[in-house]
């Protein structure tokens, strides 16, 4: 049980003026504050990206709709995809690792605190540059422009001939800049984990959260580079008259696809690994058991990291590769099912025989398990090339990846937010609101993304701003759009819970969940230096050892 209760001084309730406090946040190099900044910044973009999604769903709710013009619709999905991937999912997950990793490994800060701040501000700048294209794309006269090339921006649509104005340039530069930020953050996370662990924390004793973030950081280091390189080439094409992707001068459109997906596929694992990380912490604590098969989990994570570097062309089954290339990418893609399956089975194994406590974080983890399983299976369907020849670039794909991203990643992020909120702000989040949030969001999610598979199966391609009534797609699209309403209410309840609990929440204490990893050993919120005394550990669950001196873990490991 949590035995120590220390007095808590909630942050922000000091007497300093607003300007002083803002200044403190702006110049902070504290990993915890930067973590919060990352998350806050991602939430702002979540609302923006969500509004863009809502505009698309209104347009598609009924056939032959004229809510927005095709030009606007195309900008909406480009901005929505780009925003959600680069400025929502990545920063929010970086936020979690920034906040939690140093605490979990018993460190006082990241390895390079100033670089950490630089990384955050670069990411932030990237988002601002991207959104500046709404104004800058065509100058003030054409205000309201934005990139409309899709988030993977296939050549030659991005060439000056097909993409006039500057909106595509802002897209390129925004992603370049935020890419530098991501590389800096990954470098920092990696170095922190390798060099800043407290005494006794061998690699084999790191919490799984830390392990998965290690692999995530490694993937960022090798995967963002190709995107950066491809974007530089595109800039050279657009500004210096280069011909990398200029099909008129012998350049190749397909090589852009390769370069993009060499980045793009590892990217989706960059996103999902931190989600796995969260789930791997929450499930054991709420099942009251250690994680099942720790070392296998580590091995599975590392192999996912490696395999994911060799599967990119499963996004390109329709571009006319040779049958051997297609077969190779079928094999490598399907191979990922094995380590991923191992993970799912081990999480279930952890719950098996446990005393499961269905608090909100755990509810989201259970939803995560079911939904990620389905999403993974649709992924495997797409990985079989002949199936992809049919359903690639259809709404089936859109449904697949929203299922992974919302059903998997977003659910894990919600779980993590309820789980670590008490640590970050020292207050418990409201359970009743939390349960409402959970049910509304899960219902909305299923209404939207279960039914989205159907128009895909019926032949509806993605990225269409309108469709005819005669094709049998309309009822499904309507249901899909209605689901969004539930999602919005769910998210609003979450925001309400976050704000309400900050003022009115129950005091949390150091260790409200009776958890086992180091971050629960310090105060909530943790002091700036995290630990007055650097902890020394002897097992994977140091707090278990502390709470059960008669039966510590290190006797068994």
């Amino acid at each position: 049980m949590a035995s120590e209760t220390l007095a808590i001084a909630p942050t922000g309730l000091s007497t300093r003026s607003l300007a002083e406090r803002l200044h403190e946040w702006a110049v902070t190099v504290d990993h915890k504050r930067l973590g919060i900044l990352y998350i806050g910044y991602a939430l702002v973009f979540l609302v923006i990206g969500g509004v863009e999604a809502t505009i698309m769903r209104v347009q598609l709710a009924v056939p032959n709709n004229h809510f927005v013009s095709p030009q606007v619709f195309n900008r909406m999905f480009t901005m929505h995809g780009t925003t959600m991937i680069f400025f929502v999912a990545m920063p929010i997950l970086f936020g979690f690792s920034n906040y939690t990793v140093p605490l979990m490994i018993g460190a006082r800060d990241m390895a390079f605190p100033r670089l950490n701040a630089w990384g955050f501000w670069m990411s932030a700048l990237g988002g601002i540059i991207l959104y500046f294209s709404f104004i800058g794309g065509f100058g003030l006269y054409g205000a309201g422009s934005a990139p409309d090339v899709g988030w993977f921006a296939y050549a030659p649509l991005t060439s000056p001939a097909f993409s006039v104005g500057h909106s595509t340039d802002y897209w390129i530069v925004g992603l370049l800049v935020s890419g530098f930020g991501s590389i800096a953050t990954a470098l920092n996370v990696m170095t922190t984990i390798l060099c800043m662990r407290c005494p006794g924390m061998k690699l084999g004793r790191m919490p799984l959260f830390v392990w998965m973030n290690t692999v995530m950081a490694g993937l960022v280091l090798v995967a963002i580079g190709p995107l950066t390189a491809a974007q530089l080439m595109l800039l050279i094409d657009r500004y210096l008259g280069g011909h990398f992707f200029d099909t008129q001068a012998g350049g190749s459109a397909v090589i852009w696809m390769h370069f993009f997906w060499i980045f793009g596929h590892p990217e989706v694992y960059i996103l999902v690994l931190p989600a796995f990380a969260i789930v791997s912490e929450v499930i054991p604590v709420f099942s009251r058991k250690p994680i099942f098969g720790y070392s296998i989990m580590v091995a599975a994570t590392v192999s996912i990291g490696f395999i994911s570097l060799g599967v990119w062309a499963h996004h390109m089954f329709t571009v006319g590769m040779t049958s051997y290339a297609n077969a190779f990418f079928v094999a490598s893609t399907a191979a990922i099912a094995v380590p991923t399956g191992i993970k799912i089975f081990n999480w279930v194994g952890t719950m098996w025989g446990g005393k499961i406590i269905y608090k909100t974080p755990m509810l989201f983890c259970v939803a995560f398990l079911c939904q990620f399983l389905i999403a993974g299976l649709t992924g495997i369907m797409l990985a079989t090339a002949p199936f992809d020849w049919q359903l690639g670039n259809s709404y089936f794909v859109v449904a697949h990846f929203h299922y992974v991203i919302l059903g998997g990643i977003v659910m894990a992020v919600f779980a993590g937010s309820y789980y670590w909120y008490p640590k970050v702000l020292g207050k418990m989040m409201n359970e009743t609101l939390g349960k409402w949030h959970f049910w509304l969001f899960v219902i909305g999610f299923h209404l939207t993304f279960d039914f989205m598979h159907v128009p895909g199966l019926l032949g509806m391609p993605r990225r269409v701003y309108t469709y005819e009534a005669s094709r049998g797609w309309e009822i499904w699209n309507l249901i899909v759009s209605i689901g969004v309403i539930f999602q919005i209410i769910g998210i609003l309840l979450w925001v309400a819970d976050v704000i309400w609990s900050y003022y009115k929440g129950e005091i949390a204490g150091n260790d409200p969940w009776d958890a086992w990893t180091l971050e629960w050993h310090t105060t909530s919120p943790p002091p700036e230096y995290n630990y007055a005394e650097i902890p020394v550990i002897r097992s994977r669950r140091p707090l278990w050892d502390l709470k059960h001196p008669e039966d510590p873990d290190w006797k068994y490991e």
Partner: protein
Amino acid sequence: MRRSDDHREPPQVYGSNQIELAWTVIPVLIVVMLFLATARVIAQVQDADRSPDSIDVTAIGHQFWWEFRYPGLGVVTANELHIPVSDSVSPTPTFLKLLSADTDHSFWVPRLAGKTDLIPNRVNQMWIDPHHTGLYLGQCAQYCGTQHALMLLRVYVDSRSDFDAWVRSQSRSAVAVALTNADAAKGREIFEATSCINCHTVRGTVADGRFGPDLTHLMSREEIAAGAATNTPANLKLWIEDPDAIKPGSLMPAMRLTEQDLNSLTAYMETLR
């Protein structure tokens, strides 16, 4: 490995190598089987032999319409592909050579075959082998710009005799068409005096542009502008007056013609059978 605690906590289990092995090996077996089955289908589709009776069609993707050329038959048409039905006794599959004039597109008629992209500076292949006559709907499946959504595609699978008749009528050039009324004759003059001819072909006349669809047998098509509207005189007139009204973002400019000229032009278009 097991231990039970002071009644508050369940037994602490750390794992089991046998179980891990089981749930590693079983998925591996599934994956191997899945791969073998898939590889077989890939080989069957991609490395299929060409039968000597097959039809060749070159499909060229344009922003935002389809050009179809039948190299052996001297036919050029747009947006509506006619192919003969193929039966198991005398199979006549259609082999498509896929090219693009500008950006990426993708040829997708769900009920006939999977999709294959049309990519500039690259030649792709696919084949279809329909066994039933009828109309098959499809559309462009790779984002290609503003009007990607209205780049629809119709495939008519005709009986052999219908197909041959269609080929015969399509391979005629337009001069053969008598101009029955004065309005249409005036329309033709306007057409040939306007920049229409820079972008459109009417075989047998001075119009030999290739930026837009071949109009020689425009009236043989059920839809105009790649399925954006049905081919009625009213729609034709509206299209020529203001393409954006039907298909905002299409690459055909509005020509700013007078009402009278528009009527004549439409009348001319209607003679292009």
